[in-house]
């Protein structure tokens, strides 16, 4: 047995392994690869389908249908309905992100030690990140892949003399700048974990079970002994056979910040911190309007980023090229007015921010047993959010933009350089903004205190045996940088400590 995909009702599937890893994204695939390298018998279970690069969609519609969790339509319950973006496919969100690689900042380890009693991760995580950068061919964006949008961002950064302590690197080998990161890189340049770690698990004798959303963890007393669920057809979305995967050593949950806590809830765990301390990097974009065509979809989707403002005021800035399908709804207005705005498409480019927000929310289980995210930004975070938009506006103007499009309800559609001061007084109501939550943390946070955490510093769930969480849900703080590198390194460290 190597790969098991959807099975129809009546073809129930049972198998036993030493380790069962739930979720094949950054955390799960990295953990499974580590366990396989140690010669352990591993099953990697994924809710979504396994799509090779030739199976990747071309359109944004196809991306939502084939790669996104809930078609990308899961939104926060709170003051504003902001989408929570995650993938549901083998490789998880690494298939649809822009592969930005940033090492875990040192202050994060200090914070974990001081606030959560987690003191022995730094050296192990950094060593794992050394190895990951080799495994996933980390490199800077090559000049041929820049494209004008990223070059303009760099130009704006240079004019404003922003000093970035973490120059941007990505898990990409020989990027050609196809601008297709969000739909999956068909050119196989992006080293998403479905191209690296998942095949390695198979090569080393492990098994991959796909189209298999885990319903719950199975226990014998307080010991986790496996998982069970029903296959779901990736196109019809109908339920198929039941699968039961037994684990003699441990079950590793890495199903994402929203799904991991809910799997544990459905499994009957009653830990006081379960689902709590959800955090994110909410963000939005500001378009610049340039005289010459920018053609933002030519070049790397996110070929420029800056962590210069990570500590103060707490922001990450990035370029983000989005296709006409998404610009169509992102620009405000309707009718002829909207079409006139869309006619500028070649001349606009979007740069965004991700706020290192301190607000916390929670993940709960809906009546249907699915995840619900309750989250609203507080005033201080909204002020950061607004500051980020001011920075992006200044960067656009420094790069030569004639106008910017802030996309704030109730404000003018476009602002000229002499109007940029209006942004300082932009509303602080989240409902006025079109934003998304891209980087997610918490829900199963690690810590020493069982009242305020779900796992210990090795990802082991308090109060039960043989159950480990190894994804972004264990991260107890907001990193302020893209989390994939930290998630993969933590997962590998937790896996190393299991063998």
């Amino acid at each position, binding site marked *: 047995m190597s790969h098991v995909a959807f099975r129809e009702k009546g073809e129930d599937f049972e198998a036993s392994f030493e380790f069962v890893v739930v979720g094949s994204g950054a955390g799960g695939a990295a953990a499974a690869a580590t366990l396989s390298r140690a010669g352990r018998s591993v099953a990697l279970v994924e809710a979504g389908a396994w799509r090779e690069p030739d199976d990747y969609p071309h359109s944004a519609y196809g991306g939502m*249908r084939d790669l996104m969790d809930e078609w990308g339509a899961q939104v926060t319950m709170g003051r504003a309905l902001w989408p929570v973006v995650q993938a549901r496919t*083998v490789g998880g969100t690494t298939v649809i992100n822009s592969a930005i690689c940033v090492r875990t900042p040192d202050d994060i380890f200090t914070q974990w030690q001081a606030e959560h009693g987690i003191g022995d991760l730094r050296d192990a995580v950094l060593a794992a990140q050394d190895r990951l950068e080799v495994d996933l061919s980390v490199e800077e964006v090559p000049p041929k892949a820049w494209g004008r949008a990223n070059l303009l961002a760099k130009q704006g950064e240079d004019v404003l003399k922003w000093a970035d302590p973490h120059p941007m690197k990505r898990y990409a080998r020989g990027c050609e700048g196809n601008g297709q990161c969000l739909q999956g890189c068909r050119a196989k340049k992006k080293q998403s974990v479905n191209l690296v770690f998942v095949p390695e698990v198979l090569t080393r004798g492990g098994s991959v079970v796909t189209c298999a959303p885990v319903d719950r963890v199975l226990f014998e007393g307080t010991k986790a002994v496996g998982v069970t669920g029903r296959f779901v057809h990736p196109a019809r979305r109908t339920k198929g056979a039941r699968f039961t995967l037994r684990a003699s050593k441990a079950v590793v949950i890495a199903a994402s910040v929203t799904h991991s806590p809910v799997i544990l809830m459905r499994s009957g765990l009653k830990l006081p911190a379960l689902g709590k301390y959800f955090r994110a990097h909410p963000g939005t974009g500001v378009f610049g309007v340039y005289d010459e065509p920018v*053609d933002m979809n030519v070049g790397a989707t996110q070929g420029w980023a800056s962590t210069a403002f990570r500590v103060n005021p707490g922001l990450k800035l990035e370029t983000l090229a989005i296709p006409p*399908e998404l*610009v169509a709804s992102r620009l405000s207005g309707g009718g002829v007015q909207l079409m006139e705005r869309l006619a500028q498409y070649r001349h606009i480019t979007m740069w965004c921010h991700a706020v290192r927000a301190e607000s916390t929310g929670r993940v709960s289980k809906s009546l249907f047993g699915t995840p619900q995210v309750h989250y609203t930004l507080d005033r201080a975070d909204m002020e950061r959010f607004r500051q980020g938009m001011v920075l992006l506006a200044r960067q656009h103007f420094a790069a030569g933009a004639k106008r910017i499009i802030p996309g704030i309800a109730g404000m003018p559609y476009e602002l000229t350089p002499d109007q940029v001061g209006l942004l300082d007084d932009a509303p602080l109501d989240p409902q006025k903004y079109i934003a998304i939550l891209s980087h997610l943390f918490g829900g199963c946070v690690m810590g020493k205190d069982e009242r305020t955490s779900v796992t210990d510093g090795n990802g082991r769930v308090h109060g039960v045996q043989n159950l480990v969480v190894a994804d972004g849900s264990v991260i107890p703080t907001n990193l302020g940088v893209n989390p994939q590198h930290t998630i993969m390194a933590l997962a590998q460290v937790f896996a190393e400590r299991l063998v």
Partner: protein
Amino acid sequence: MLWLVRSAVVIIYPRTPTLPGAADCGLDEFLKKFKRESPLLIWLGTVLGALVFHLTPLFTVYLPLPAFLLPAKLADRHAARITSTNVYLVRQSVFLVKLCAGLCWGAHPEVRKVFALPALPSDPGTWRTT
């Protein structure tokens, strides 16, 4: 229901001298596919958004008529106003219609040609079974 969504989309994305409108971009086939493939809640949300769009001209152009009965000029003014209304839930409802239609409009070869982008091949919709 398809008709309700279609008529809202056509008003939101009309044809202009520089760009094709949604009606020129295979909208009917797209909506059938969207209804068939999308989760029920997303489709229902889109229908609800279209319903909100059609029932609100009284608040935008001050006429007690559904949007699909408005003269073209007033329908266009309604589209501009309702998509930027200050009432959040109304704006979000109509946003769903805009999002759905944008996925059709923006991927169409004629639109991409105007933006100097190559035509997109069809999505394979395949996955690994072995």
